[in-house]
């Protein structure tokens, strides 16, 4: 199965609503998707896991996916992280 990975530097803290948007989007893909911040990696489909990362503005976050739609999943989640953390919430 294809694997894909991409990193982004957050422009805001990863609060509840962007974490929710990320997990909702991740849940729509068949691929296994994870988010890594610092030394911690969590299931991107678990909103509580994503919130528990405590990822903050300026921190580099990596989205990795493995599965048939891995590339699409990574692109979608990186876009959400870019947009949602600029808006905050």
């Amino acid at each position, binding site marked *: 199965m294809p694997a894909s990975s991409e990193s982004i530097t957050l422009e805001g803290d990863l609060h*509840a609503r962007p974490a*929710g948007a990320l997990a*909702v989007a991740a*849940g*729509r893909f068949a691929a296994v998707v994870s988010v890594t911040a610092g030394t911690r990696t969590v299931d991107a*489909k*678990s909103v*509580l*896991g994503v919130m*528990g990362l405590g990822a903050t503005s300026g921190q580099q976050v990596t989205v990795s996916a493995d599965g048939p739609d891995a590339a699409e999943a990574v692109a979608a989640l990186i876009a959400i992280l870019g947009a949602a953390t600029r808006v905050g919430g």
Partner: protein
Amino acid sequence: MPQLAPQVGIVLVSHSARLAEGAAELAAQVGGGTVTVLAAGGTDDGGLGTSAEKVACALRGAEAGAGVLVLPDLGSAVLTVRALLPDLPDAHVTLVDAPFVEGAVAAAVTAAAGADLTAVAKAAEEAWHARKL
């Protein structure tokens, strides 16, 4: 994004109307606002306690064709839900044992992603293992 299939609905049963309403508001917003999360809190006269009538009303309102997940805040709310279910033989309801706030948020997000009732219940139960710190 258009919804191709009905989503699982969520009912939060609390002894406090304000607690249920606040948790429902939070869960719905974190879920992106597409999921029906209904509060069934307090007694019929507005006091602390649970109301079978409020729960029944919320169960009907949350059903969109994919079933309804029910989260109680404390153990004794379970009694109200369990006593009610035999009166609703056609209801597609799962009563889940999960942390109230975290379970509601996890369930709403999972329902928003289009998961079925079993997967939404599992997401709520997994909230027992999610650490905040």
